């Protein structure tokens, strides 16, 4: 009898593996990233670090020469961690944005690569890595290659001064917000460089438009930032957050009517700085193909997009820190934090849990703002260049000045009678809650008026 050779390898159930692995990744990746930050960063705060040097290494931190080196090394590791955080979160935001965009457009969004399309960004990054690294023959080779790195540097340098939690910050500079403003300008340099060095008319258009846009919107941005700085009395990011409270009526946005206006000015200006619609002229796909990025391919191209999505986080984080209370947990005051830290040189283990809570509060608020930014992008059309300049110089700058002046007087009034602040906080909070309620009512009314997806459109 002829025997038939049959040996079948057991086929792995790829689908199920992919599903569970992506589900795991959805939770594990953010937890791991945030967890690393939460655990590591408090260690490199100056006081904890010095205690570590004194008690574990048995050296006097002030006089030992190695303190600086060790601290530097620790900071480098922190920077690396943050860069990883930014890159991965850039990828995850791209997935989030595409899913949200899909739902807004009554379609699904990526859903093939992993459950819910969660690994789409991994697939895209890997694909871009494998693409040919083209440098146009006529382009200025050194500048062309260097330009993306300026942009990435601008993004990374900003991250080190962002306060993620009560003690979760790489460098609590006492000129925090000023430093952040200054360093985001590196992105302009990168954009201009890429536009010019591409040696293509379209890229040049895009680069110049973008530079004009970002530089112009730095002014109302700075003016809007003056308001919380005046209210807190310090430029340090942690200081500004500490001057706010946990409850919504204790946030700066409610404490001062001018701060309410300043929040929107800041939000709009940051949207413009991050090149997001309605200000995405430099990347206006329908006009310039890809603007200043049109000659880039492969991973250099991916770097620009990475920075764009990481920028989502950064601009939301700045707005949250300055106006929406940052990491302040409702119900915990400054003295509560000090009490939780304890009197000992090393904080107790339970303290890390409270840190995690503050990071969670911060992340939640930032995610809300990120969702709003994405929502705006997929709803609104684009503003023209001259209209955008108009908006900046004729409306936002005077409004920013007005808010700053008002705040100056307000602070004088507050110093005389603290009750003014609380009244404002209460009133604005109530108004905000009412506005949100009306918004939902109106949305429900709009939805019910349209027959919408309740019709069977299956093919005949």
């Amino acid at each position: 009898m002829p025997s038939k050779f049959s040996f079948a390898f057991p086929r792995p159930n790829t689908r199920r593996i992919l599903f569970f692995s992506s589900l795991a990744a959805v939770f594990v990746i953010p937890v791991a990233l945030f967890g690393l930050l939460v655990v590591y960063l408090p260690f490199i705060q100056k006081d904890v670090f010095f205690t570590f040097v004194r008690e574990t290494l048995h050296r006097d931190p002030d006089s030992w020469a190695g303190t600086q080196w060790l601290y530097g090394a620790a900071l480098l590791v922190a920077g690396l961690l943050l860069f990883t955080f930014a890159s991965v979160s850039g990828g995850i935001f791209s997935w989030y944005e595409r899913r949200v965009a899909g739902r807004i457009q009554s379609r699904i969004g990526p859903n093939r690569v992993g459950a819910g399309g969660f690994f789409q960004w991994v697939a895209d990054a890997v694909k871009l890595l494998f693409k040919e690294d083209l440098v146009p023959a006529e382009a200025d080779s050194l500048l062309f290659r260097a330009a993306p790195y300026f942009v990435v540097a601008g993004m990374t340098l900003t991250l080190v001064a962002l306060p993620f939690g009560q003690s979760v910050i790489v460098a609590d500079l006492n000129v925090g917000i000023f430093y952040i403003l200054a360093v985001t300008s590196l992105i302009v340099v990168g954009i201009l460089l890429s536009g010019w060095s591409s040696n293509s008319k379209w890229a040049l258009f895009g680069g110049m438009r973008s530079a004009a846009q970002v530089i112009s919107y730095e002014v109302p941005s700075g003016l809007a930032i003056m308001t919380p700085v005046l209210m807190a009395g310090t430029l340090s990011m942690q200081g500004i957050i500490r001057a706010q409270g946990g409850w919504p009526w204790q946030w700066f946005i409610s404490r001062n009517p001018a701060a309410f206006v300043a929040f929107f000015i800041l939000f709009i200006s940051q949207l413009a700085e991050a090149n997001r619609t309605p200000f995405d002229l430099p990347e206006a796909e329908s006009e310039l193909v890809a603007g200043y990025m049109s000659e880039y391919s492969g991973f250099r191209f991916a770097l620009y997009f990475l920075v764009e999505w990481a920028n989502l986080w950064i601009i939301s984080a700045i707005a949250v820190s300055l106006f929406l209370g940052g990491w302040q947990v409702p119900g915990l005051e400054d003295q509560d934090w000090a009490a939780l830290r304890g009197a000992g040189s090393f904080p107790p283990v339970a303290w890390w849990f409270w840190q995690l809570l503050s990071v969670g509060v911060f992340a939640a608020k930032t995610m809300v703002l990120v969702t709003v930014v994405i929502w705006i992008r997929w709803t609104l059309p684009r503003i023209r260049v001259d209209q955008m300049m108009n908006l900046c110089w004729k409306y936002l700058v005077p409004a920013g000045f007005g808010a700053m002046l008002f705040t100056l007087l307000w602070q004088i009034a507050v110093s005389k009678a603290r009750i003014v602040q609380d009244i404002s906080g209460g009133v604005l909070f109530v108004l905000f809650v009412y506005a949100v309620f009306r918004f939902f009512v109106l949305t429900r009314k709009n939805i019910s008026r349209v027959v919408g997806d309740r019709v069977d459109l299956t093919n005949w």
Partner: protein
Amino acid sequence: MSKLVLRRIDRNNEEMLVNFGPQHPSTHGVLNFLVETDGEVMRRAIPDIGYLHRSLEKIGEIVGYPGYMPYTDRIDYLAAMFANEGYAIAVEKLIKVEVPKRAQYLRAISCELNRIASHLVSIGTMATDIGAVTPLVYALREREAINDLIEALCGARLTYNYHRIGGVAFDMPEGWRDKVLHFLERFESLIQEWDRLITWNEIYLKRLGGVAVITREQAIDYGLVGPNLRGSGVDWDVRRDVPYGAYPDFKFDVPVGRGWAGTVGDAFDRYYVRVLEMAQSCRIARQALEKLPDGETMAKVPRRIKPEAGEVMSRVESARGELAYYVVSDGTERAYRVRARTGSFLAMGIIEDISSGLMIADLIALIASLDVVAPETDR
């Protein structure tokens, strides 16, 4: 690129000659524009067409009269029913055949559905050019429903070849009427949703209001037709003023530009006229379905069509304006000359003269508001 153009560039100023197209996410079809600009403001935008020239007029002289019908689809593939109808009407006039009532009604229904589909593409791509991507997806979602309906009717989703010389090819299937009425009911609420989403959006009004104004006299002089003409304030619609087919039986309004965003004849007027026309098309389709008479769908037409020598001009109101067919016959089975005068071809002619002083973003708005499609300009 034309030598004439090169000579005109002023090299002393900082002006560049940039190619806008032919591959471009924004231009509607394969069109090229040579733009003389200093970076943002254009001195002139010279259209450069011909990338989609398929010598359809020459082909008309080779295939016979009935055989040309699928080619007419390609004259404007987004609004193919009108192209079919125009040619059918021209040849029917030549051979002196009368189309039965039911066929005329079916023609009207299919044409109005096609008008809605074409306008959906037009306004959807216009919104995308201005920057809002979401309205395009909504428009295409509705258009999918229309595509499915027309596929049930004639078997094709884009190039229909549905009308025949003497009538229409197929009668409507069972249950189709209810599906169309169901769709129309749902679609009318979409127009309101669309208005709330994008039409009255502040940014949209600012981008389109007062941009690329074409006055009444200019519109008539340059030969613009259809929504471009009506957007500039001229109250003219071939369906109402020189009626053909079943249109005398229907009651409908003709939207005319009123300067909703400030100036009569700006890009917003041309855009909004299209939105309102979709609502009117729903109305016509509904009336046609309710009054649909029984009867034949095709008249008795000889197998070999051999009209006597002569010439004829027929006009239909296509989605892009008046589509006129000029057919010359010399007594044989093949046409001597077939000519399709399309609205987009004349719309290209006005771009060069209107474009001086506009910004590049406005050029995009202009092209999108004129609803220029490459197959119509090049044939």
